[in-house]
């Protein structure tokens, strides 16, 4: 079969799956989300799955990953497990801070939406779409809907649930909200969930998302996040990707920032066989500030691909992309960072850097900056490096009695810490440091006991 026919066959499989299951999909979701499906599947039919080698997917073989015949489950099948048993989390107020997604569905033990102090609403997106339709309608599909990526359309057609977080105007969320995204099953499984985060004017929120797999099956996730950061709002989102290496994950984050807002996302990729993260940020008001950062530590046959697109649509905004990675064994990856400065976005400051350490000759890393600048009064810079550990530094450490292996770890840790240090919550930063340290030492293979314990 030629690749073209394979692509069509694959696409048709998803379309007919949708036709066959649309009743079940809708019955187990929310009316508001259902209204988007028909158009989305039509859009998917015309866009198809991204092709490897196409403009935005030069190195990621989506078709290979999506052609695996995995179970898809559209009903709310009860998975019984004791959270505390498998996930040792010592967050003091577990009820308040922890949101659990299991195979893409909110796991609330009967409590699907929580109202936290200050009017914060957090819980199931499907339930929120039923209880607060006007609020959800204002944002659902508004940011990801602009995407011309077939996978976003696919998600919109199939997504039934996910996380919803709403922070009202002027409210500051003291403790971080922790979202734990668990894949656990008795079969190989595919999930497509949808998250919506709304930070209203001058609000402040810190969110931690952890992706875990708790059974050894092959998993595939295609998730979409929409993040709205209203005027003056501050959102800090840290994501730790730590699925096992037999799993594949594609994430799409579509963010809109109004004037004076400040959105900072840090994605730390530790384990996972195939990871593709898309981040689209649109800065639509003056003096908005964006930090999009990532750290990837890979080995064996892992593939990690980060694709970032920052759209400066208003003057006087600031953006900074910082991505760093350490690749070992025969791992491969790619970073694609795009900065678009529109004609009226004068006095833009936009920066980007991507630094990589390649520990062996068999690793492959592709780094591609793309600057598209239509305004004349802007400051933009980009830089990308591929290198080994600094031999002089290594010798200096060894000359003080530190073993070669330990010296290497110290240097890799220092390299990684450059990203981690941007996590503003001390306790969280220390825990991520610890995870990164364990990962570099090769001591973090499973993580049902990693317990992100952030408080």
């Amino acid at each position, binding site marked *: 079969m030629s690749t073209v026919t394979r692509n069509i066959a694959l696409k048709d499989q998803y379309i007919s799956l949708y036709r066959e299951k649309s009743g079940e999909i809708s019955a187990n979701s929310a009316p508001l989300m259902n209204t988007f499906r028909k158009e989305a599947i039509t859009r998917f039919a015309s866009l198809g799955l991204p092709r490897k080698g196409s403009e935005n997917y030069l190195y990621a073989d989506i078709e290979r990953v999506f052609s695996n015949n995995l179970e898809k489950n559209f009903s709310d099948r009860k998975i019984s497990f004791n959270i505390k048993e498998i996930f040792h989390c010592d967050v003091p107020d577990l009820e308040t801070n922890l949101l659990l997604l299991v195979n893409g569905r909110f796991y609330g033990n009967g409590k699907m939406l929580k109202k936290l102090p200050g009017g914060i609403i957090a819980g199931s997106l499907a339930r929120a779409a039923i209880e607060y339709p006007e609020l959800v309608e204002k944002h659902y599909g508004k940011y990801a809907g602009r995407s011309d990526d077939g996978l976003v359309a696919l998600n919109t057609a199939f997504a039934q649930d996910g996380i919803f977080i709403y922070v009202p105007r002027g409210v500051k969320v003291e403790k971080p909200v922790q979202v734990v995204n668990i894949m656990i099953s008795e079969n190989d499984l595919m999930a497509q969930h949808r998250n919506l985060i709304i930070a209203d004017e001058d609000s402040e929120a810190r969110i931690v998302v952890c992706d875990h797999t708790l059974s050894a099956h092959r998993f595939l996730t295609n998730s979409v996040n929409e993040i709205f950061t209203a005027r003056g709002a501050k959102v800090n989102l840290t994501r730790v990707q730590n699925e096992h290496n037999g799993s594949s994950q594609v994430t799409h984050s579509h963010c809109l920032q109004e004037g004076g807002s400040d959105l900072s996302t840090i994605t730390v990729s530790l384990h996972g066989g195939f990871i593709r993260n898309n981040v689209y940020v649109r800065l639509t008001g003056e003096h908005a500030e964006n930090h999009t950062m990532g750290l990837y530590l890979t080995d064996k046959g892992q593939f990690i691909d980060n694709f970032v697109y920052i759209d400066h649509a208003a003057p006087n905004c600031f953006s900074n992309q910082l991505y760093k990675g350490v690749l070992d064994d025969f791992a491969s990856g790619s970073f694609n960072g795009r900065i678009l400065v529109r004609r009226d976005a004068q006095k833009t400051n936009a920066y980007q850097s991507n630094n990589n350490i390649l520990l062996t000759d068999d690793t492959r890393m592709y780094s591609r900056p793309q600057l598209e600048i239509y305004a004349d009064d802007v400051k933009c810079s980009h830089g990308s490096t591929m290198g080994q550990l600094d031999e002089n530094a290594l010798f*200096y450490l060894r000359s*003080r009695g530190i073993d070669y292996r330990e010296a290497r770890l110290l240097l890799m840790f220092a390299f990684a810490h450059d990203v981690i240090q941007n996590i503003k919550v001390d306790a969280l930063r220390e825990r991520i440091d610890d995870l990164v340290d364990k990962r570099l030492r090769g001591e973090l293979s499973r993580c049902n006991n990693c317990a992100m314990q952030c408080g």
Partner: protein
Amino acid sequence: MLSIKNLKASIEGEEILKGVNLEVKAGEVHAIMGPNGSGKSTLASVLAGRDFYQVNAGEVLYQGEDLLDKSPEARAKEGLFLGFQYPIEIPGVSMVNFMKTAINEMRRHRGEEPLSASEFLKKMREKKELIEIDSSLTNRSVNEGFSGGEKKKNEIFQMAMLEPRLAILDETDSGLDIDALRVVAKGVNNLKSPENAIIVITHYQRLLEYIVPDFVHILYKGRIVRSGGKELAMLLEEKGYDWVRNEELAGKQ
């Protein structure tokens, strides 16, 4: 303690050390002087285990064992310390973490328990006071953004923390102000004992007023061409290297 016999070493095919002989006994202080490019740092680096130098001939015994076979960390664990002429900046590695790791690796090598946090901090404090080094420096990443003189002081601080048996100080006095020079000398003299030995590489006789050497050697074009007592340093100060050059020329004729 250290016995260097006919040591020849090259880099990228170019011979830098052309047969160095040197004997250092416990309790002694040696000074090595010599013009720029004569191979002083090369000698120090070869002793510390830098692998881009190729040893072509000769042998080095340290405490009765072959030194050149050993990894840099093994040498350090056995008490060899090199104070770098150009200390390396290591962004992201904190001084505290660096010193704690180094000390505990060495303790482990000697079969000792790691220092507790409070013991370690106590030691840091003591040595900081001895070397008169600022906490603002030891709270930073290793050498990052340190001034030239601060880096040199930091080498002496590390030496004081690690308490080596044989310290080789490569131009630790260069770029130091007069107060710092005094402090460096204090650190070195503090280490001096009948069990330890020190080799200072320097261009200035000034340092030798503070750290009085038992022997002075002149390294010239990869060979030690002259050895003597501390008066040799004085002579050199007075006559300059031209004198060595001329003597060499005269010797060759």
